[in-house]
């Protein structure tokens, strides 16, 4: 039996110990590989209109995930090596040279790392298929993807994780050199010191958190970046101090309440938390903040995805719309549209539009780019409006007298201006006052974008000087999937220099940006949540090993297994719940900064929170289970 045999045996036999390290390494590889392989999947290249952007986003996001994966692997590696101090101690006693011990740990880490890398890439290739199908589904082009190995991704993943294996292996090699020998024979420090409570810090913490709250809800400045910056500063320091002081103060306060504190197992649970919090402050702070970021990512992605169809509908409510001035072209379009049997025509509508000049200088707010006293205005009649409303399935009613008009909110009006009660003068001295703003578009967007609806009698009168032009519009079934027809029509129109817009084109543009965003946000979110959850889990395991004796003692003095399980469940809950709650609170703040006018607790936000809580709950259960198994068996 040589030293190498011991390494091999150890690797084989100690599989449970190594398993967590191995798994965390492998999962990191899977996630990373899947992610970078996306840029090399032909199906995505074909399906996405703006592939280059997707590619560069993926590339950039992969840096972020390297960071995360790196931190995570580093953490599990240090956990892993800590667990083996005793074993290393034995090797020292047996008189194995430091260099040899270093080499053993080095090779072991390399073997472990390489096999995790290999397994990760293989599984990653399988998973990436699923992920790609998921992405395509989000991009609204579901299809079956054949198994595919991406060499670029393998090389990229290999390089990134090769570096990590090298670094962790060097770290493993240095383990024996980093500490004095005696360290390997000393018991781990049992508890960390109980942190001092500091009233100034506690007050400071509250002040900082209150400031971060004020910055959001009573903004002095209007710049979101500044708000976000100040908010981050206040929140980070505030949260840190919160863990540092406030929680400690709170527990100490509980300790004063003797009847409660001395009741059953509370005594053990609270002192435990108190002793551990010193070492956990940074971790809890980081995890709270990361949770906040992750949740915000979830909200944003979800919101955006949700609004894609709405946006497209608002931009181009009709499947196809073009300016008709040529009978032959009308025929061609009709033929193309009718040929598409999968998307039968629901309604075909001709929309006469008067285009004339007007003076909007009396407007309080003039949308950007509109010449004030000679702006081009497009006018629809009220009966056309009703036809459109019927075609689009809207239930809006409109009652207009001759000098009244309704205005469709211009697409580029970001300020949500109020037009009601304002007046404009049309060419020929017709003064109209606006009595209603139509929030949803009823006609596909095109320049110039200032549409009015006027009464039929007014329309008739205007018609006499201004010959209306005709928009021909089609609405077809399943317009989200009219890729072929849409493209055909667009190229046809481009040839003839005719203005034509399709729902599909707009929808695709929106869904691609949102779908990719959602995917990336979701993906990063998953990495974050897995990393943070696993780090807490590892930390709990580490403490479990340290506390084993303490719990054995408890068992010996008559604490029942059940009671110990309850203690564990309680103190683990604390470690998971606290950052979760604080993370959720922070995230709703960030949300308020990003969507200042939106309602905070929308369905989307609640669903994201629920999903997050659920995943954390799984980690919690796993932690309690493992902890219990470590300290409460036998």
């Amino acid at each position, binding site marked *: 039996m040589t030293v190498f045999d011991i390494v091999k045996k150890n690797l084989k036999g100690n599989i449970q110990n190594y398993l967590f390290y191995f798994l965390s390494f492998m999962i990191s590889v899977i996630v990373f590989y899947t992610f970078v392989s996306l840029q090399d999947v032909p199906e995505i290249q074909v399906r996405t209109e703006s592939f280059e952007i997707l590619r560069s986003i993926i590339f950039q996001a992969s840096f972020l995930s390297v960071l995360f994966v790196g931190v995570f692997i580093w953490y599990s590696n240090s956990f892993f090596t800590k667990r083996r101090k005793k074993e290393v101690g034995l090797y*020292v006693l047996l008189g194995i040279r430091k260099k040899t011990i270093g080499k053993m740990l080095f090779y072991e880490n390399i073997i472990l790392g390489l096999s995790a890398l290999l397994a990760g890439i293989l599984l990653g290739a399988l998973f990436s298929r699923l992920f790609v199908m998921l992405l395509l589904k989000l991009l609204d082009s579901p299809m079956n993807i054949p198994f595919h190995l991406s060499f670029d991704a393998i090389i990229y993943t290999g390089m990134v994780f090769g570096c990590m294996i090298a670094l962790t292996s060097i770290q493993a090699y240095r383990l024996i050199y980093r500490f004095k020998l005696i360290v390997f024979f000393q018991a781990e420090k049992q508890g960390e010191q109980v942190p001092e409570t500091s009233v100034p810090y506690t007050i400071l913490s509250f002040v900082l958190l209150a400031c971060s709250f004020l910055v959001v809800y009573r903004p002095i400045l209007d710049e979101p970046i500044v708000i976000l910056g100040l908010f981050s500063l206040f929140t980070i320091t505030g949260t840190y101090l919160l863990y540092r002081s406030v929680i400690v103060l709170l527990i100490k306060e509980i300790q004063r309440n003797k009847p409660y504190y001395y009741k059953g197992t509370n005594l053990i649970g609270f002192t435990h938390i108190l002793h551990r919090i010193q070492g956990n402050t940074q971790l809890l702070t980081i995890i709270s903040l990361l949770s906040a970021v992750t949740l915000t990512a979830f909200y944003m992605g979800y919101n955006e995805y949700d609004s894609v169809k709405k946006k497209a509908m608002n931009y181009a409510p009709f499947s196809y719309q073009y300016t008709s001035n040529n009978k032959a072209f009308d025929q061609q379009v009709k033929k193309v549209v009718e040929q598409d049997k999968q998307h039968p025509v629901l309604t075909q509508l001709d929309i006469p539009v008067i285009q004339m000049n007007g003076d909007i200088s009396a407007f309080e707010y003039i949308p950007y780019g509109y010449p004030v006293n000679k702006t081009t205005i497009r006018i629809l009649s009220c009966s056309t409006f009703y036809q459109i409303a019927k075609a689009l399935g809207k239930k809006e009613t409109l009652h207009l007298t001759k000098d009244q008009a309704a205005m469709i909110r211009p697409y580029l009006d970001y300020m949500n201006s109020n037009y009601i009660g304002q007046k404009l003068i049309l060419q020929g001295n017709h003064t109209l006052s606006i009595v209603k703003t139509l929030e949803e578009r009823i006609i596909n967007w095109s320049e110039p974008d200032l549409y009015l609806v006027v009464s039929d009698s007014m329309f008739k009168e205007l018609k006499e000087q201004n010959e209306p032009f005709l928009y021909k519009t089609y609405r077809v079934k399943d317009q989200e999937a009219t890729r072929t027809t849409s493209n055909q029509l667009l190229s046809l129109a481009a040839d003839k220099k005719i203005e034509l817009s399709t729902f599909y084109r707009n929808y695709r543009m929106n869904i691609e940006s949102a779908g990719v965003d959602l995917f990336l946000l979701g993906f990063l979110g998953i990495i974050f949540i897995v990393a943070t959850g696993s780090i807490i889990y590892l930390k709990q395991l580490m403490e479990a090993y340290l506390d084993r004796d303490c719990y054995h003692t408890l068992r010996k003095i008559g604490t029942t297994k059940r009671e110990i399980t309850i203690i564990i469940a309680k103190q683990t809950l604390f470690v998971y719940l606290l950052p979760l709650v604080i993370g959720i609170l922070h995230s709703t703040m960030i949300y308020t900064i990003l969507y200042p006018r939106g309602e905070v607790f929308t369905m989307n936000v609640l669903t994201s929170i629920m999903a997050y809580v659920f995943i954390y709950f799984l980690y919690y259960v796993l932690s309690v289970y493992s902890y219990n198994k470590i300290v409460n068996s036998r």
Partner: protein
Amino acid sequence: METILEAKHLKKVYYNNGNAFQALDDLELTIHEGEFVGIMGPSGSGKTTLLHLLATIDEPTSGEIKIVGTDIMQLNEDQLSNFRRKQLGFVFQDYNLLDTLTVKENILLPLALEKMNVSKMEHRVEKIADRLGIRSILEKHPYQISGGQKQRTAAARAMVARPSLILADEPTGALDSKSATDLLESLKEVNELDKVTILMVTHDAFAASYCKRVIFIKDGRTFTELVKGGQSRKEFFQNVIDVLPVLGGNTHDSV
């Protein structure tokens, strides 16, 4: 009789966030070949500290340690490793066995490191296993055996390479009295029959009574010493017990 161990003017001061604590204070110790020496003292008296120094895994603040004529302070790290491998065997309270290896493999680990040939290795292991009464569990893994058996495995591993000196720190500390007695009997037998030199640290008078000589330490200094001579174990036990009140227990801690 050859001198196996000779420690002179041993001092050990721990520095902990600014506070200095003197764990060993001018301690002297000599052990000859074939002895079975017990070091007794109340908890906190510096026994483990002493053992760590002798085991060459920690360094004294000052003083001199010679083991089989070698001044271990003069050795560099690699030489120290070699030295530990050839000259020392260890039995600690917490067994320190590798769960992945069988009992047999655990025991032959030191021989494997010496690259001994397999049949010789197995012969040695079986012999020592017989002596310690663990022949029947050789193929089991440490997690399948009792604490007492684990400790005897650790003892077997400590002896198998025939080191000049075996160092044991509270080897019976985690054992029930039956297992403790078995282990101590085994150690005694090995000492008497195979002439293995043993230094055992303990705070337990019963364990100490198996030794041929017991050195008492108190506050990091040698306090007194008892030699068993012709006494029976029971008589010797009584003598050891009698020293304890003079030695004092944890009462010193409050000073």
